[in-house]
């Protein structure tokens, strides 16, 4: 087993605002291996995007504080100096963002924007060579008539095409790690499927690691190998895809799973939303962050549950819940599915 590509250890990110200190990321640890797709799942405000951006160093600023480490290829991304990080950005680690409509500069041709990324990391490549490589990349992500389209402007492409351009651009320097932040959220479902196919192919071809940040469990089920579930700045559960979907250990995960719309579900059953609202990250709840919304909370929950493996035979399936394992397996049932019960239906 080779060394992991990325090793994030107890990452914490805080922002100083007018209203106080926001603990956007409060203890996140996970690893990404070569050729592996790790999905980071959570609601808006869970800290998943901040985590992804921090890996690239894009959250650095006068108001930001960091703790913990994120080791990539011998460098700690959290503490590395800006120059070093800049060399990694766009080359060792590349990122694809959420909204393709606004992520490309409208005044430059897309070819030029891809060439820019290539040449900023390798001045020895001539413009012509870089241009050819851009065409090659566009072809690889499935853009038709690449030799013509390389000279087109972003506004001449549809959303799905633009996202492919973004992916092509991200791949231009053969990154070892690709981070995709909600790459399909802004696109419609059919395009989403195509983009996911691209990502799948990528993983096969490149052996690079992929971090997929998303709130859509459907997408996760499609291509993830491992899943990291985040809530209110913390990882609340992580494990392989099967472990998470078939043996989830945290009430929040149950809630997420229960709220997926499923074709095979009985129509008369209502869609289960998780009641309540995500907590403020300025004054988070004491102990377990999910406590206020959890129907099963008890006294111990005012202590922060550590992220550990509580199952005897799977050392990598970690969770943050004080409940006993057998209890969990009982409580997560809602009828014949997995879901989060509401407080009224719980017998305490």
């Amino acid at each position, binding site marked *: 087993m080779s060394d992991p590509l990325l090793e994030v250890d107890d990452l914490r990110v805080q922002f100083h605002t007018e209203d106080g200190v926001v603990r*956007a990321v409060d203890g996140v640890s996970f690893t990404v291996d070569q050729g592996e797709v790790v999905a980071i799942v959570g609601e808006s405000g869970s800290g998943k995007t901040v985590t992804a951006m921090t890996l690239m160093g894009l*959250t650095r*600023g*006068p108001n930001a504080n960091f703790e913990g480490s994120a080791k990539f290829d011998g460098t700690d991304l959290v503490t590395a100096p800006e120059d070093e990080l800049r060399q990694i950005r766009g080359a060792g680690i590349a990122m694809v963002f959420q909204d393709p409509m606004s992520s490309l500069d409208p005044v430059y041709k897309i070819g030029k924007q891809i060439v820019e990324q290539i040449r900023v990391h390798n001045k020895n490549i001539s413009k012509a060579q870089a241009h050819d490589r851009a065409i090659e990349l566009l072809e690889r992500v499935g853009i038709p008539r690449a030799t013509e389209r390389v000279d087109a402007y972003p506004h001449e492409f549809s959303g799905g095409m633009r996202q492919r351009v973004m992916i092509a651009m991200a791949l231009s320097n053969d990154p070892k790690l690709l981070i995709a932040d909600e790459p399909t959220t802004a696109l419609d479902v059919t395009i989403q499927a195509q983009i996911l196919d691209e990502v799948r192919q990528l993983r096969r071809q490149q052996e690079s690691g992929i971090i997929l940040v998303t709130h859509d469990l459907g997408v996760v089920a499609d291509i993830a190998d491992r899943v990291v579930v985040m809530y209110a700045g913390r990882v609340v559960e992580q494990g392989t895809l099967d472990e998470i979907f078939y043996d989830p250990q945290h009430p929040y995960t149950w809630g997420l799973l229960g709220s997926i719309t499923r074709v095979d579900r009985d129509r008369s059953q209502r869609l289960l939303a998780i009641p309540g609202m995500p907590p*403020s*990250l*300025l004054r988070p709840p004491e102990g377990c962050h999910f406590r*206020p919304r959890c129907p099963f909370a008890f006294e111990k929950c005012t202590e922060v549950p550590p992220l550990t493996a509580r199952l005897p035979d799977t050392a990598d399936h970690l969770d943050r819940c004080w409940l006993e394992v057998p209890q969990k397996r009982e409580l997560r049932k809602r009828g014949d599915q997995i879901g989060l019960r509401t407080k009224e239906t719980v017998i305490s």
Partner: protein
Amino acid sequence: MTATASTGTEFSDEFASAGFGEGDQVPAGLGPWRLAWRRLRRNKTALFFGGVFILILVLCLLAPVYSHSVAHISPAAENIAGQGNNCPPTCVSVTGIPIGPTWTSSYFFGADRNGRDVAVRLLYGGRNSLEIGFVATLITMFFAIILGVLSGYFRGILDGVINRALDVIWAFPAVLLGVALGATLAVSGILFLHGTSLLVPAVVIGIVYIPYVAKPIRGQVLVLREREFIDAARQQGLSSWRIMFTEVMPNLASTIIVFVPLILANAILLEAALTYLGAGVQPPNPSWGTMISDGIAQLPAAFHDVLVPGIMLVLTVLSINIFGDGLRDALDPRAKVRIAR
């Protein structure tokens, strides 16, 4: 050069507004006005200059007090020979050069060409300049809001006509337009106002600035009317007028508030400019504009006659501008840089 000041705060905005307390109570959040007020209160510079402006305003309002009790001379008293005053020995020299600042209660800033007390005139002139500024601003805002809202909300021919008219006024340099209107109205007066009334320049300036406010308001109304809450109101059966008043106007409120200091500052400047060109305040009414003009006519002698009213004018306009800027920063929900330590 780093411009990363904003990459951190965009996340904190998202998180700070993501709920309060433990999450299972509905929060009594701060409304946008209270938030804006808080932001304004923290802007020491804006508050300081706001204070300066208030100070100037008060001083000018107290002009009669100063004239009567401190300087013991009226603003129009021409005192070339300097009888009974602190002018050693005369207030205006034989060669026609008035004395400079004495820094005493009498003729604090010196005298002007006619032997008048500059300090006293400064305050009286300030009253006039500020009065014109306020009236002009009132006129501009009143008509701009009406025209902007009517034009933007009803569209169609009404919009076409109003918009074209606004464009025509707007295309002319403000000063030239002001001169045109000012020169005409100074002679003929307008409605019930006599040509030499102070309100004439106020009306002129008020009209000149209407397009600068009406067009942005119209633009905002155009955007607002397409928004869902207008549809919702219409669905409820509210009449157009009712919708305009209860839904559209409050949203325009912050835009309007931001424009007021801007127009006021420009109005005061325009008054000085028009007076300098002869199309603004007519003699013998004092204003900062007339004082600067008279002073310039004497150049290169007696520079204090130019400097004193000029600095007062700049200070006043500057204070309004800085405060207005602070106001804009406080009201702008997308305030880009909010460093908090």
